[in-house]
């Protein structure tokens, strides 16, 4: 089935925040810090207020307060991210003042006239600098820059095993800072509705209810007076699953001024002042026996989390995820992990597609290839030896995660087969004889998805997301409306959830309307992130539709004068089992339920609605990615000749949407492996603040992606489906890094850091050839 979202997207009949323009709308621009670390000695807004068109200039004195994410852990230090910086700035791009004017042009003119007296201090702009003894501190009140440091796992036997192992690998891996860069940046429009005494907030977000709660809490107004609407949202990838300062400020300004206030994030702000992620370093030791069995793993993890904790997930989101999920799809009996969140004078991190899984997969998959090389084993064989096997399920991992059935080995074998792994060495040798450097690399991973409240509770956030609810109702004509707390922002939920309802009620998906993204019209929910929506929101939808189906059957049984258990719901009709001539349409039942309620069975409520909630334990999708690449010795460039994905997300409800998620994810993973990196200089100045410098790949750089499916139905989800929104991004960096390492391994070059810069690669090849 095709996506119902696409015709309006393709023809421009969409409604994004910037398409909304209530009369009298004012436009906001933020004065942002040019320094990474500075005291603010004073702010003079008077010249800005005199600029034509400027209506107001607001500073921390006008809108105090901030966002404070909390983890209930003694090892965690919370930070207050001020809405507007008052006495200090901690990263370039931090908002200091909000200029509100009759146009964005005038607002920018005004922003130039806000005079801020800075006293710049030393910046810490790298992990090394932040962790060095005596380093400047990002937060004065702290003794160091460790916002979180946890010895999460340990094992008394680990050191012995490492010492005695047939192969002990030690390596350092680093991954570059990247950002989601959605096509639509953040955007917000707020207005006070005097008639209803309500604050309306239109916002480009993944989490409308969370925005509502946060706006109400921070502005100290009753939550029922706030209505948050997410109209069309042009991508999020995690960047919009947190609540930012600007969204709150726009709401505060609208409340204060009594006029609609709009802020549309421009690309500079999006790159330099929204949210980043994935800048991590791993020092690992891994022990293998002579057969290639992984015996023990010791990981020391540092995440550069920027200046503040994002709300509500906190800066623990990456380090905790990394330590918990490090073993991935491999059996592991002995594990130690220390993990830390390191503050720097850089943009804070937020969840970005994959959240540490692209990095741990890069680490673990590079370790597997290194171990294979050390032990003279084939990379596929060593993986096969260590992957969780069919007979192991349910497998309880060393970190306590319970792995439900998946197809780890099967996906590897299929991927290896599609790429002709058996005769690869001969083909590689032949290419080398022609002077060509080609490589084949694999990446196996598990993707934990659809986890509910109990799993999130283990993170010990002050706010625990997880459940979902669905409200479903049938109108008198038999049309169905289902309202959900999840929010598709590009994924195609309106299509997929309509299919779920259609499957359950036997009605045409075209007669199912999915309502999302309006807190007045949907049950409280957690929005869309962490590959949760189809599992949890889809599960709630299926259960609600099932409850509605039961009501239809009860009514039909009464009207048809047959037993309820003999009524079947099929193809839009309710019919007696074995007697299809005794039947009525769903629409006829709906008509009775609304317009002839006196004919309903005794005790049956008038109308047709149902509600269900769902809060599952979580499920693992899995995949193997394989890539064939060629490295140019002349330019250092990497070309991807083939890219194969064999994925298993359980029951596939819409194949086109699943494939689209895989392709988009792989593109972002290739970006992190070969193109994108946010670079800061030693003073904390961002060097890559435009799309000319931050290299988001285009269609020309992304190769065709071959996708094959396996289907291990999920036992925990109502639909049998598993989440799969992040897998593409998770698997690709490791597959590319392994393929490139395979291409140049004979020259002694290994890729232990991404992105792989052509200049680095060319220089290493030249050095190797000069030896």
């Amino acid at each position, binding site marked *: 089935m095709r996506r119902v979202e696409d015709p309006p997207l393709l023809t421009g009949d969409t409604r994004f925040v910037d398409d909304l323009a209530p009369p009298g709308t004012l436009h906001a621009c933020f004065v942002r810090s040019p320094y990474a670390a500075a005291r603010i000695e004073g702010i003079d807004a008077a010249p800005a207020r005199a600029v034509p068109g400027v209506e107001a200039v607001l500073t921390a004195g006008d809108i105090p307060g901030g966002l404070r994410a909390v983890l209930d852990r003694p090892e965690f230090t919370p930070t207050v991210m001020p809405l507007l910086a008052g006495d200090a700035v901690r990263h370039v791009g931090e908002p200091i003042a909000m200029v509100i004017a009759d146009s964005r042009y005038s607002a*920018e003119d005004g922003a130039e006239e806000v005079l801020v007296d800075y006293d710049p201090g030393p910046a810490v702009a790298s992990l090394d600098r932040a962790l060095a003894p005596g380093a400047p501190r990002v937060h004065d009140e702290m003794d160091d820059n460790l916002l979180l440091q946890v010895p999460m796992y340990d094992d008394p036997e680990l050191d012995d095993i490492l010492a005695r192992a047939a192969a002990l690998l030690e390596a350092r891996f680093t991954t570059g800072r990247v950002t989601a860069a959605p096509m639509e940046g953040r955007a917000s429009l707020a207005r006070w509705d005097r008639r209803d005494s309500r604050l309306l907030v239109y916002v480009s977000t993944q989490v409308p209810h969370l925005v509502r709660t946060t706006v109400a809490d921070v502005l100290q107004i009753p939550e029922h007076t706030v209505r948050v609407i997410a109209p069309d949202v042009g991508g999020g990838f995690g960047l919009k699953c947190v609540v930012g300062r600007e969204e709150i400020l726009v709401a505060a300004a609208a409340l204060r001024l009594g006029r609609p206030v709009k802020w549309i994030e421009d690309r500079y702000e999006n790159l330099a002042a929204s949210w980043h992620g994935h800048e991590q370093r791993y020092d690992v030791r891994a022990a293998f026996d002579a057969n290639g069995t992984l015996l023990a793993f010791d990981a020391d993890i540092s995440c550069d989390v920027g200046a503040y904790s994002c709300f509500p997930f906190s800066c623990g989101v990456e380090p905790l995820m990394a330590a918990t999920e490090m073993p991935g799809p491999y059996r592991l009996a002995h594990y130690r992990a220390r993990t830390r969140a390191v503050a720097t004078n850089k943009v804070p991190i937020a969840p970005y597609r994959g959240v540490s899984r692209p990095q741990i997969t890069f680490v673990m998959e590079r370790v597997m290839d290194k171990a294979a090389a050390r032990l003279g084993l084939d990379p596929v064989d060593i993986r096969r030896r260590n992957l969780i096997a069919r007979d192991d399920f349910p497998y309880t991992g060393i970190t306590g995660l319970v792995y439900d059935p998946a197809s780890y080995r099967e996906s590897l074998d299929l991927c290896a087969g599609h790429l002709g792994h058996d005769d690869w060495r001969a083909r590689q040798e032949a290419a080398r004889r022609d002077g060509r450097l080609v490589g084949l690399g694999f990446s196996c991973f598990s993707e934990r998805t659809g986890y509910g409240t109990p799993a999130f509770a283990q993170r010990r956030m002050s706010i625990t997301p997880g459940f979902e609810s669905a409200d479903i109702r049938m109108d008198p004509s038999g049309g169905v409306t289902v309202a959900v707390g999840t929010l598709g922002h590009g994924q195609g939920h309106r299509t997929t959830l309509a299919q779920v309802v259609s499957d359950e009620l036997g009605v045409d998906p075209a007669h199912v309307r999915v309502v999302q993204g309006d807190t007045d019209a949907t049950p409280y929910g957690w929005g869309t992130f962490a590959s949760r929506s189809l599992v949890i929101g889809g599960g709630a939808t299926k259960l609600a539709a099932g409850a509605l189906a039961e009501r239809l059957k009860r009514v039909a049984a009464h009207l048809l004068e047959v037993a309820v258990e003999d009524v079947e719901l099929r193809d839009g009709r309710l019919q007696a089992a074995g007697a299809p001539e005794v039947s009525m349409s769903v629409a006829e039942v709906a008509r009775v339920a609304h317009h002839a309620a006196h004919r309903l069975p005794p005790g049956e409520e008038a109308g047709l609605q149902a509600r269900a909630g769902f809060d599952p334990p979580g499920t693992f999708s899995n995949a193997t990615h394989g890539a064939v690449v060629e490295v140019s010795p002349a330019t*250092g460039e990497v070309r991807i000749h083939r890219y194969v994905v064999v994925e298993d997300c359980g029951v596939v409800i819409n194949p086109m949407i699943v494939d689209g998620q895989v392709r988009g994810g792989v593109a972002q993973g290739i970006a992190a492996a070969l193109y994108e990196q946010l670079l800061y200089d030693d003073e904390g100045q961002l060097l890559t603040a435009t799309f000319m*410098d931050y*290299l988001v790949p285009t269609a020309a750089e992304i190769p065709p992606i071959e996708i094959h499916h396996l289907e291990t139905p999920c036992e925990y989800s109502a639909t049998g489906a598993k989440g799969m929104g992040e897998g593409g991004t998770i698997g690709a960096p490791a597959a590319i890094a392994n393929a490139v390492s395979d291409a140049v391994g004979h020259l002694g070059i290994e890729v232990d850091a991404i992105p792989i810069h*052509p*200049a680095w690669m060319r220089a290493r090849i030249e050095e190797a050839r000069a030896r």
Partner: protein
Amino acid sequence: MKPARFEYHRASSSAEAIELLDTLGEDAKLIAGGQSLVPMMSFRLARPSALVDIGRIPGLDAISVVDGGLRIGALATHAAIESTSDPAVLDGFDVLPRTARFIGHLPIRTRGTLGGSLAHADPAAEWCVLALALDAEVVVAGPSETRIVAARDLFTGFLSTALEPNEMILEVRFPHRPTRCSFVEHSRRSGDFALVAASARLDLEAGICRTVRIALGGVGPTPVRAVEAEALLAGRAPSSELRADAARAAAAALDPVSDVHAPGEHRRRLAEVLVRTALHRATGAP
């Protein structure tokens, strides 16, 4: 990312445009396709007091062959040059449409102009490099005279040209039909500014290089000629070994700066690879 305030004037003739420039002073800027100027204004890196829009001046976008040379009006778009089907142009000047393809993306090529690119003088711009290789002559009009500036005299520094603030480019002439000319470039992504671009022109007589032009972009503040490499090839047959020597000589003469995209040394090595490739293609080898 909104420009600062500016006045806007639309000129209906080149004379009017020049008069406006002369009157408005040196903070006024011409705008044609706007593909470089508008982004710079949006970042407020450029803050012209006034724009003089020459985009609708008639008759300045012709592409024609006159007396064996090619003449292109300053307002001809990259896309118009790329898609020309005039056999007179394609016969001998086909390096122009081949080069146009490297410029940005299609929407940029649809609005950006040849004259605008030369006046902007980005050191990595394709037309600037090719203008050097083809010994282009730039017809420049000012309040009192119209003069011809040779391409080699046009580029005076980073984003700087020999044009006076009250002058505009009317036409670009490529006086010599090149025997063989190639253009190659290397960029991280399709459509990006080149890390390094190279063009080689070999006018051969009986297999001997009569005229040699090698031009490079992205390796310094202006596009440059690789005169050492040219000297190696002049008067000799461009053998594979000689081409490799010339490429090494071209690279050795460079000292590109480092930036976020590449260390200077990487650009220098790319220059060698690209000059070798450009020379190889200019010999007509496959």
